[in-house]
């Protein structure tokens, strides 16, 4: 597992995607999986920046990424407000244009694109989001 700390700002999403993309590619994932891993990580990091660090300008998100056996693990740790993605209601994808909700889409994509998504908020105010993508 490699670990990198990123300033919790939208400008660094590009670098975050490159970082997990490189590891996923080097681990043997194909183009489609690499894209989806990057998208899921972007959505997870965007949520942390937008919600966990709402009103915080110097937040840090620590991202660890690497293979564990046959699965790629991505762990995002922040020290902001707890924000549990599993508590966000899933968007109604059958709703028509007027009814379509604008929120919850990123979390929905994360869950669909990855094989597992877990969240844990610790008493010391660290929030840990783990995402797993299996090979093949």
């Amino acid at each position, binding site marked *: 597992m490699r670990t990198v700390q990123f300033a919790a700002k939208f400008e660094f999403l590009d670098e975050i995607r490159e970082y997990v993309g490189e590891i996923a590619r080097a681990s043997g994932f194909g183009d489609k999986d690499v*894209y989806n891993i990057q998208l899921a990580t*972007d959505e997870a990091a965007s949520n942390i920046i937008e919600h966990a660090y709402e009103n915080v300008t110097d937040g840090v998100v620590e991202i660890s990424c690497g293979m564990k056996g046959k699965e790629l693990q991505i762990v995002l740790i922040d020290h902001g407000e707890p924000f549990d993605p599993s508590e966000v209601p899933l968007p109604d994808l059958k709703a028509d*244009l007027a009814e379509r909700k604008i929120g919850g889409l990123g979390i929905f994509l994360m869950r669909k694109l990855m094989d597992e998504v877990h969240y844990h908020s610790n008493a010391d105010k660290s929030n840990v989001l783990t995402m797993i993508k299996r090979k093949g």
Partner: protein
Amino acid sequence: MEITAQEFKHCNMIKIKGRVDSATAPQMAQAFESAANAGKYKLVVDMSELEYMSSAGFRALLAAQRESKKFNRGEVVLASVPDRIREALELAGFTELFKTFDDDLTAVGHF
């Protein structure tokens, strides 16, 4: 991300190049707002050189479609959607909200 706009007789084309995420989506949303403010409600979004789009971009597309459909039989349609982006749009249930065309010409001809 880079945005260029082009005017046609019956519609306007907005070409989005590069990557759209939470950092760049507001700029894309602004391009749609400018079009709406100028009374352009029939829009083709050219995605031929789009490399990446997160849900932040999807939300901007949804807002633009809502705005466009309010007026003068307006509509936002998508052209030349790259495979990876099409798959994500499908997953999000967005392909039911937007007509998609294989190329610019057919999309422009739709209006």
